[in-house]
């Protein structure tokens, strides 16, 4: 999936070929396959092979959504969202919130491993104030 | 000195009353006293007298030990009077209490039993007339 084409809409684009990064800003909306990312500013980094290695979205309420063919839809919010393409891992940082199926997680830092569907939330991480992790768990309806 | 035969200045007793009472001897005594006093017992009467079950207690006077004992018989019964149309309590729940002293001579237990039953009947008559006193002022309201 890493190699799929990326469609980007944004107001401005700044290219930094030397570092291999592109920074879009102003209502940025990025799609890559079943991944959708929005934010006030999105930085795209590419590896030597030119493939996208990391997307970093920042903004008042950056948003990530993924609809895996086989699993449940996942939605994430945060002041900063880092999507590690190779590891297929997402980090939501500061005012982080993750919805996975019927469960929701809030906190200072939430990390989600897409393929292994693992979530890890923490109440504090460097650079944020202390935000207790809050979650709602709805038992399966018997 | 101002004394007049009772009943000349105001209506004498209640003219009709609904007696809601337990099925015991006190209710019977009250029923007789009311009818003798000229009050008609009628389920549709404007006032309802709620009369609880009688409770007769005995209290020894002096030391209990010797064969000849003097006791005080106390009859108590809760009662209240309600106006049927709006359920208002003209006489809120109260306990009617009358008592009488009685010699109990253990030498003749049958006589003691008779005298005790007579005293209880006497207490019921006394309680009934006390109840009538309490009902009399109600008929002006």
């Amino acid at each position, binding site marked *: 999936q890493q190699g799929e084409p990326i469609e980007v809409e944004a107001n401005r684009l700044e290219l930094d070929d030397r570092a291999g990064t592109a920074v879009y800003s102003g209502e940025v909306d990025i799609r890559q396959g079943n991944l959708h990312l929005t934010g006030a500013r999105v930085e795209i980094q590419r590896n030597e092979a030119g493939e996208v290695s990391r997307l970093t979205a920042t903004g008042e309420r950056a948003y990530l959504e993924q609809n895996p063919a086989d699993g449940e839809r996942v939605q994430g919010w945060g002041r900063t969202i880092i999507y590690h393409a190779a590891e297929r891992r997402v980090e939501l940082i500061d005012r982080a919130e993750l919805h996975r199926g019927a469960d929701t997680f809030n906190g200072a830092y939430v990390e989600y491993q897409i393929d292994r569907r693992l979530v890890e939330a923490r109440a504090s991480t460097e650079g944020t104030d202390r935000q207790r992790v809050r979650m709602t768990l709805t*038992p399966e309806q018997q | 000195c101002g004394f007049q035969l009772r009943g000349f200045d105001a209506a004498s007793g209640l003219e009709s009353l609904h007696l809601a009472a337990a099925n015991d001897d006190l209710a019977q005594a009250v029923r007789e006293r009311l009818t003798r006093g000229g009050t008609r017992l009628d389920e549709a009467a404007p006032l309802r007298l709620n009369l609880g079950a009688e409770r007769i207690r005995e209290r020894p006077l002096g030391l209990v030990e010797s064969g000849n004992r003097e006791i005080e018989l106390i009859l108590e019964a809760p009662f209240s009077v309600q106006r049927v149309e709006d359920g208002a309590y003209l006489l809120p729940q109260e306990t009617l209490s009358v008592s009488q002293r009685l010699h109990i001579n253990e030498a003749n237990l049958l006589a003691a039993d008779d005298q005790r039953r007579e005293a209880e009947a006497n207490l019921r008559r006394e309680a009934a007339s006390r109840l009538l006193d309490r009902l009399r002022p109600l008929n002006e309201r």
Partner: protein
Amino acid sequence: APPEPLAASQLDWHPWGDQRPAGALCRGRYLVPDYRLPAGATPEEVVGESEQADYGADGEVILGGEVVLRRGTSQLESPRVRVTAERDRALADGPLALRDAGLLVRGDAGELSLTDDAATIEQAHYVAHDQRLRGGAQRLERLPDGRFRLASASFTSCEPGSELWRLVTGDLVLDQASGFGTARHARLEMGRVPVFYWPWVRFPIDDRRQTGFLWPTLRVSGDGLDYAQPFYWNIAPNRDATLTPRWISDRGLLLGGQYRYLYPSDAGQIDGAYLSGDDGGNGPEGSAGRRFEGEDRWYVDYRHQGRFSERLAYELRYGAASDGRYFDDFGGDFGERNTTNMPRLARLDYRGQVWRLEARAQGFQRLDDPLADRDKPFYRLPSLTASARWQQRGFYQQWRSNLTHFWRDIDETSLPQSLEREAAVGTRLHLSPAVGWRFDDSWGHLEPRLEWLHTAYDLDYGERVTNRDRRPDRSLPVFSVDGGLIFERPLQLGGADHRQTLEPRLNYAYVPARDQRELPDFDASERAFSWQQLWSPYRFSGADRVGDLNRLSYGLSSRLLEDASGRERLGLHLGQALYFEDRHIDLNGDPDTLPPEAAFQRFYNATRERSPLVARADWRHGVRWSSHYEVLYDDHLERSERAAAGVQYRDPRGHVVNLGYRWELQGFDPSVEVSDDAFRNFDREEFDLSFAWRSSARLDLIGRLLYDNTNDRFLEQLAGVQWNDCCYGVQLVWREWVDDNDTGILADDFTDRGFFLRFVLKGLGGVGGDAGDYFERAIPGYRPAVL
């Protein structure tokens, strides 16, 4: 054993400190903190908060760092919680705290169901705030239906930090819905010292059920140490039982019991007790207390009332005791004896519109030891009564008839000649029809009445040789006329409208004298003079004797009634009787003789021309004070034959003071013969002071003094303290009283004294039962604080 209790601060306990309210019995109170999380959108939703959360591969969620989970009304706090993939269970590490409505449980580890209320907590400590109960358990399970099951648990209502009492059990089930706890292998510990053990016990855990469970009674008295330990078994909402093992140091183990049942149309109870091999008590050799040493002592008392229909009711009663001294030796709470005979009765009672029928079989076991033949009561086997009344406006007719067979098991030949009239058994027919005319209005009444008494006997004197008539009979009229007027006037008193009545009354009665010497004496007894006797033509009770009478009674009553309520504030009554002929008939029944002048009081009563002047007053001064006075004054010999006065003070705060005075001339009660137990050869003058003082919410002071002024001795002295604390109550009573050995003779009186300690464990269904009723009888108007 249950875990050691936690510190008070851990159990939501907040001491009052110095701003303790006046009525507070405990030194602090439980305060439930608010929830730390708002509830979820639906009662099933689980809301959580933690320092970190890991959502495992298989859907398991692991929460760490001050985790708080909230589901509906329950909230879990724990350092680490694992929620299963199916989201049906949460496994929490300790130290955890589980809260629900009115409940706190702390523990070392726990498992909570997320689909219902079930939970299991290890090494648990719990507090039920509303019922002020707390304790610990190796394991505490909350079952899906809301009950709690605790394994090797403890249970107490004492405030945290107090070790006064606790119940330690194998397993314990607390059912707040029904309000009961059930325990197995339960032992009661007082200050960590085991005091009692039950293999199985069920007890109330809230005050819905008033009867107490565990109020052990400890008595130190003439009979040494006396420890009673009742336990209550609530079998069903309408049936319960109390078993009371009572260990008396010098007598042995007395096992008492009571079973009660209540059904829609009938109810009943059976009480009893059994002691095998009485060790005799610690009285000196040959003393009354040792009379039944070595024998089995028991009593049983069965009562049952019921109703077949609206008109047909029945009653059954059977009482029996092993011997006449049973209640002397094992009597009431504080050594007082209140049972003098064991009644036996079977009664069927039909009340029709006009006719009233009653069939009755009746007898008594008289508890008097030794019991002479002449003192044995007769049985009525049976007594059939039919009575009716017809009324046409004022005129009425009454029919009363009774057929009774009297029987008793004595050696009739052994009775002395003077008591030959009591030697027979037999059947008596007694008819007493009457006609009368009753005029009744609010201003007065008049009632002339004529009654005809016809009595016939069929007697059997057994082996006794006597020429008394076997089939005597007697017929005579009883004429009486009773009339009275009621005058009234309004009266202003203390700013309130009152009404004062003036009620003159006259009553003439005439009964001719008839020879009744051949008649037996089954149930006849001469009545003592009283206010009621002024207006009654009958000088005897029972039907074997009809006293001749020709007298006019006159009386004047005045009553002060509150206009608004009709309540009687003051009642004054005066009355006297004029005798136009001497009264010849006494138990001997000879119409032509009078009592010998040597028996002065009986001769004087038979020949006096005027009865004592009766003066009575009942006065309700105000809400707190009331008093009663009565005197029977003989204006001929200028002496009072009988007098009584009483003043009562009732304070809403709970204080009660009663002051009483009683005087009675020797021989005043004609029914007491010289040979009776009750005969006493001195005038009776007694002062009676009793008080209860609620000095604070925790302390009641109780006292009673009964002084016999004639013989200058105290008949009873009682001083008591009732201490009412947070989780227990103590009644401490010192009582010294005269036991008169069932006779009026001074010589055989002896003083007994005892120190009684009653201990009450609150929280185990509160206290009820008969604990307080001795005080209520000794101190009229006193309602002991519900401990």
